[in-house]
């Protein structure tokens, strides 16, 4: 077992375990914390794959931004000590069944398919390259999506403000 | 311009006139004027038709016009009449004319009422003059839909229920019809080439027997629902009981005839072999309907129910006669449609007028009305006598033609069916005389009835027209019979080929 394999399995185990905990924990703040671990481990996977920039974004935006946002909203809407009522079995069982069947199906398909091996370098991706691509409008340039996503973010921001604003009435 | 188009244009103009009427009071006058014109035009058509025939014009269809309507699917607006449809046009215009006057005192939303009523009648006229299956179906639907509004809004009793039931059952029937029509359409040209809805052209095509056997029940039952084929008749008692007077008249008088006419013109005419193969099933059903309706009527207490069951019985006789596949019985079927149409319209008109005075439709609550409203009572007796098939009225002519025609088979099945159907004349006498005896005769028990007044002028006009219709046919039936027989040629030819 190579170190890569070991690290992968370690991160995978963390991801799977905490994912499960995230969706089953009855204390909502804990669930958010577990989610944080999951996201952090995902960032670890990105590091493993040598996408350092991506991993950083993952940590900053996801773990730093979104999870904090979630925690804020939890604090706004619930009591910390409050335990969530557990879902009824009538809901759990079909959902679990669907999830299991779906997962099994996907895994079987994946295992049956013979993926080609690694073909290229395992080089670290350069941030300069990333930056250039983002503002490049030629081939392999992502200027347009970048702008689109910027507008989306702006719109979301405005939307969120409008929505969350207290009504005057 | 084709004179038949007037039959559709006049109702449309009348409706336009109603919409622009300044006051509600004008509405009925406009309707009356429009429908009077309609009656006149119908009379002209009939006379012109007879004149053409006398002049030796033997074309299958007279006054035919053909307009392309939707070219892609080869849908035409193809109109024309033969002896049968011209008779039906006469029936419709008489009934709608009387219906307008019978609803003279509708005060509740008269504009909408008369609009729907006339729209309905235009659908019926369109149905009878159409020779293209698609337009026929279109007009059929136009005739059925306003019924829902008319019963649901202006009806009485459990009107929403009845209206819904009636509409849904008839819609179910039209769904079957649509399937059948599409079946005909897609088999209308077995050699390839453009498909057609044209009734006359389809009639020339030899449709394979299996296809015929498949689509015949759709068409026959589909139209049969409207023609009160047992056991699909139950919309009729409730529908008639809840409907306002003119609607009952038009519905029992004309709309139910659409069913019989459809069975005759579409199902049997276009699918003769299947009709011949499957006739026995429907003969049994129709025979049951005849005797069942008559016996069912004996027990009823509500005037409208009695007449609804009576209609079931009489309309079943129409289907019964159509299924006999010989000229005499067919002739009788058409005459029975006309006779029953006028007669039952008269019945419902009178029931409406009586109800308007006594505020009850239960015969055991009424008595002695002959004394206070002799005109209406005598008219009711006349309608009753016509209904039980008294000579001198149209019912006798029609029934006897049917019985003589259906007895021209040598096998026991047809004979027994005929004898059973004929025995309904006794049951009919029982329920008619029971009503007449209970309602009109004896002494007045309810003192309030002493104050009842006899018919107003418009009621007299309405009933008078209808009585004139039944007696005119009853006393001199030969012209009508000849006219209808003239139209039966093609179908008899097809049936003859199918049966041999």
């Amino acid at each position, binding site marked *: 077992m190579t170190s*890569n394999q070991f690290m992968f399995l370690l991160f995978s185990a963390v991801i799977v375990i905490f994912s499960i905990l995230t969706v089953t924990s009855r204390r909502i703040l804990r669930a958010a914390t577990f*989610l944080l671990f999951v996201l952090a481990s995902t960032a670890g996977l990105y590091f493993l794959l040598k996408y350092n920039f991506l991993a950083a974004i*993952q940590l900053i935006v996801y773990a730093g931004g979104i999870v904090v946002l979630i925690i804020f909203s939890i604090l706004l809407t619930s009591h910390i000590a409050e335990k969530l009522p557990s879902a009824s079995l009538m809901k759990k069982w079909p*959902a679990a069944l669907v*999830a299991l069947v779906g997962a099994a199906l996907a895994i079987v398909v994946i295992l049956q398919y013979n993926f080609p091996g690694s073909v290229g370098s*395992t080089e670290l991706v350069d941030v300069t390259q990333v930056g250039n691509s983002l503002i490049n409008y030629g081939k392999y340039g992502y200027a347009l999506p970048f702008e689109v996503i910027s507008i989306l973010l702006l719109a979301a921001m405005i939307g969120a403000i409008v929505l969350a604003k207290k009504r005057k009435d | 311009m084709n004179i038949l188009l007037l039959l559709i244009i006049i109702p449309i103009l009348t409706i336009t006139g109603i919409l622009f009427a300044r006051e509600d009071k004008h509405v009925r006058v406009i309707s009356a004027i429009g429908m009077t014109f309609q009656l006149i035009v119908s009379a002209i058509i009939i006379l012109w038709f007879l004149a053409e025939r006398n002049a030796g014009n033997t074309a299958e269809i007279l006054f035919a016009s053909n307009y392309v309507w939707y070219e892609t699917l080869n849908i035409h607006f193809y109109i024309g009449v033969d002896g049968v449809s011209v008779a039906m046009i006469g029936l419709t215009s008489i009934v709608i004319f009387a219906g307008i006057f019978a609803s003279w005192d509708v005060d509740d939303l008269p504009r909408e009422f008369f609009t729907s009523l006339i729209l309905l009648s235009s659908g019926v006229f369109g149905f009878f003059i159409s020779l293209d299956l698609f337009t026929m179906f279109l007009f059929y639907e136009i005739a059925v839909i306003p019924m829902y509004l008319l019963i649901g809004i202006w009806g009485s009793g459990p009107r929403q229920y009845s209206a819904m039931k009636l509409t849904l059952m008839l819609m179910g029937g039209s769904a079957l019809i649509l399937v059948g029509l599409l079946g005909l359409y897609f088999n209308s040209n077995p050699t390839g080439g453009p498909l057609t809805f044209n009734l006359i052209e389809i009639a020339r095509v030899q449709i394979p027997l299996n296809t015929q056997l498949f689509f015949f029940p759709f068409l026959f039952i589909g139209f049969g629902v409207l023609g009160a084929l047992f056991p699909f008749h139950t919309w009729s008692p409730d529908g008639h009981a809840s409907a306002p007077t003119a609607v009952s008249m038009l519905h029992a008088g004309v709309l139910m005839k659409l069913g019989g006419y459809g069975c005759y013109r579409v199902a049997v005419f276009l699918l003769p072999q299947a009709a011949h193969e499957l006739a026995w099933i429907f003969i049994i059903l129709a025979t049951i309907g005849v005797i069942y309706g008559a016996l069912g009527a004996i027990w009823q207490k509500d005037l409208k129910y009695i007449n609804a069951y009576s209609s079931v019985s009489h309309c079943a006789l129409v289907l019964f006669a159509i299924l006999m596949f010989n000229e005499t019985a067919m002739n009788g079927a058409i005459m029975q449609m006309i006779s029953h149409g006028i007669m039952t319209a008269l019945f419902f008109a009178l029931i409406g007028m009586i109800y308007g005075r006594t505020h009850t439709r239960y015969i055991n609550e009424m008595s002695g009305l002959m004394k206070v409203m002799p005109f209406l009572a005598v008219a009711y007796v006349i309608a009753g006598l016509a209904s039980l098939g008294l000579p001198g009225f149209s019912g006798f002519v029609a029934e006897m033609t049917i019985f003589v025609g259906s007895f021209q088979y040598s096998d026991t099945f047809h004979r027994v069916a005929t004898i059973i159907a004929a025995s309904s004349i006794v049951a009919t006498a029982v329920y008619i005389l029971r009503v007449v005896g209970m309602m009109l005769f004896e002494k007045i028990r309810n003192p309030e009835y002493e104050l009842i007044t006899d018919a107003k002028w418009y009621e007299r006009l309405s009933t008078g027209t209808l009585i004139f219709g039944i007696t005119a046919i009853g006393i001199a039936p030969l012209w009508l019979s000849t006219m209808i027989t003239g139209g039966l040629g093609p179908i008899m030819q097809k049936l003859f080929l199918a049966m041999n």
Partner: protein
Amino acid sequence: MFEGVPLSWFLILSTIMFFIGVYGFLVRKNLITILMSTELILNSVCINFVAFNKILYPEHMEGMFFTVFIIAVAAAEASVAIAIIINIYRRIVNIDVEKMNEMKY
């Protein structure tokens, strides 16, 4: 092979994560936890993109950029979603998804 980790491992991991997210989405009652499940699902997709990119087409960067955009979208989505949740909470003092059935027949 990416230095001993086959592509299918990544895919299996993301599949598991995805369906855990689905399970959470279907089962949880609290709107915020449902939002968290959604984040799980998005995340699993990101892993796929990245893995495909790195292992099959290392010289390209589509997968990576997709992931970046997904993260951005997720951020936008989360903010809007949380705004909505807070709004709902203000209105009905509850964010139980089962109580919200305005779309019922």
